[in-house]
């Protein structure tokens, strides 16, 4: 490595770290992202300046294909589909690591004449990269609803099978490290690791998905760092490890926001416990559901003093955020105080809902975090729950048999009345019933969230 390249790498590290620091604050985040991107550009250019580089045409081809696919994908993706896009980008990163490890095996004929640490690092990268690629692929499929969002499990066979797969991939790796030369061995490593990725993510319920994506993100970082050890490249080591470490912390923070532990999430089965959910509903005494109309809802809102909007993923898929904003404007014009109670995991990722509401020009100050919202609910006249379900489910506090028991929720039932906008009586992403819908304070307004809110807007204008 020449001095120039080393210096450029160091500049890139500084930019990565400075950029990431910026990304932890709302005001500096946009700039932080571009600073990190500049660091990446410098790292790429520096690598191309390494002595003895060739194959320029193929390099240009790879970079070109990547740019042609990546740029439009990132530009066109809808804000609601953001989580699966992140999963996809993470997956291809892991896939790249796995492919490079495979080629490393091929060009060194099974790490012949290479120090042992190179073989170990490269094989570790192969395993983790492959897990990340296939795991992210399944996560993408689930969020995109190509695959069922509900947990798919093998029941009791699940854990033993995962352990067998892990043992198999490690065994293949050990055979390679101790002198195995057959190419089938590395293919075995990649396939077994890929199956682990599939089998671990498949049983995980939708609500836990963001945490899993974050975890796989950290994995890809670690695999990149391992690849850096194998290739003796400091840029890969530093950037990969920073992502590995920060990704792990982030995963932990997300899990904490949902009151879930990472081992519990990986053990799977969340939302699969139908018996617990069923018990909740019968426990509610089969109270009839009270439904309301847009006209009634509009009147109820117009005579309220304080309205709290509780947005959820249903609002996002119906693209109702602009209609909600219009409704809030009309209410505010009547002197009604409108705020938004944003659960940390509203939408499909922490912060996802803030993004969607900000897109509709909802002022940042009107967004209340969970604790603030919960202390405000007793003074709220009408809580308008739009397409949110699990984050308002009282079973999380009252029913220890519920799969989401212990998750912090928004206490909408402590407000004076509740209107729930929902497409149907279907259960939420976690696949469990919600006693809120049969609560005596609750009126249900069935229909597409955007149409319902639009209807309320029309009624409010007519009042």
């Amino acid at each position: 490595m020449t001095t120039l390249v080393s210096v450029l790498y160091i500049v890139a590290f500084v930019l990565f770290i400075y950029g990431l620091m910026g990304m932890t604050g709302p005001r500096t985040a946009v700039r932080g992202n571009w600073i990190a991107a500049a660091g990446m550009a410098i790292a790429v250019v520096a690598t191309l300046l390494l002595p003895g580089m060739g194959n320029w045409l193929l390099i240009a081809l790879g970079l070109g294909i990547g740019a042609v696919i990546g740029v439009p994908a990132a530009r066109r993706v809808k804000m609601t589909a953001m989580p699966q896009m992140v999963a996809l980008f993470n997956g291809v990163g892991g896939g790249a690591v796995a492919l490079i490890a495979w080629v490393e095996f091929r060009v060194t004929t099974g790490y012949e004449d290479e120090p042992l640490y190179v073989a170990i690092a490269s094989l570790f990268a192969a395993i983790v990269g492959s897990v990340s690629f296939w795991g992210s692929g399944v996560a993408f499929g689930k969020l995109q609803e190509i695959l069922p969002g509900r947990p798919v499990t093998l029941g009791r066979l699940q854990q033993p099978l995962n352990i067998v797969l892990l043992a198999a991939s490690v065994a293949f790796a050990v055979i390679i490290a101790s002198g195995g030369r057959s190419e089938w061995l590395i293919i075995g490593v990649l396939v077994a690791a890929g199956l682990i990725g599939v089998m671990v993510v498949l049983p995980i319920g939708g609500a836990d998905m963001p945490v899993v994506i974050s975890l796989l993100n950290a994995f890809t970082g670690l695999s990149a760092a391992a690849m850096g050890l194998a290739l003796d490249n400091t840029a890969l080591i530093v950037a990969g490890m920073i992502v590995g470490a920060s990704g792990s912390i982030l995963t932990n923070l997300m899990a904490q926001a949902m009151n879930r532990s990472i081992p519990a999430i990986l053990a799977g089965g969340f939302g699969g416990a139908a018996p617990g959910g069923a018990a909740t509903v019968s426990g509610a005494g089969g109270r009839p559901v009270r439904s309301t109309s847009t006209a009634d809802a509009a009147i109820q809102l117009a005579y309220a003093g304080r309205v709290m909007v509780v947005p959820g993923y249903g609002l996002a898929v119906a693209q109702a955020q602009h209609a909600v904003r219009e409704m809030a404007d009309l209410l505010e014009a009547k002197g009604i105080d409108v705020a938004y109670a944003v659960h940390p995991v509203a939408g499909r990722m922490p912060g996802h809902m803030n993004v969607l509401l900000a897109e509709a020009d909802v002022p940042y100050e009107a967004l209340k975090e969970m604790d603030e919202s919960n202390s405000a609910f007793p003074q709220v006249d009408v809580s308008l729950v739009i397409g949110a379900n699990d984050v308002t489910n009282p079973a999380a506090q009252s029913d220890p048999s519920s799969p989401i028991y212990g998750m912090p929720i928004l206490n909408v039932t402590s407000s004076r009345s509740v209107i729930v906008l929902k497409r149907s009586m279907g259960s939420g992403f976690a696949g469990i019933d919600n006693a809120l819908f049969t609560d005596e304070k609750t009126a249900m307004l069935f229909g597409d969230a955007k149409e319902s809110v639009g209807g309320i807007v029309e009624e409010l204008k007519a009042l």
Partner: protein
Amino acid sequence: MPIESIAILVLAGFVGYTVISKVPNTLHTPLMSGTNAIHGIVLLGGLIVLGHGVDGVLNKILLVVAIAFGMINVVGGFLVTDRMLGMFKQRPGGQRSGGRGAGGREGGEQ
């Protein structure tokens, strides 16, 4: 010797740990997306192996795919993060000074 590499590895781990100790919930998703873009650094691995020359068509194909994957990870990651964060742009005193679109410029300081 790998000992220096391992030292760098450990120190980088601490950097990552310290940088992300305190983040508001709101920024979890953009931050995940941003770190996601950074591990696109694996792109360099593909560049190094391919750039220093490999024989065989399959090797070349695999590496071109790896580079394309890394590139998707990098450009897609940073662009998506920017789009997410663009939604958070501050609007000074309620006036919306069309600060969307042009990503480079900062709309207004508060």
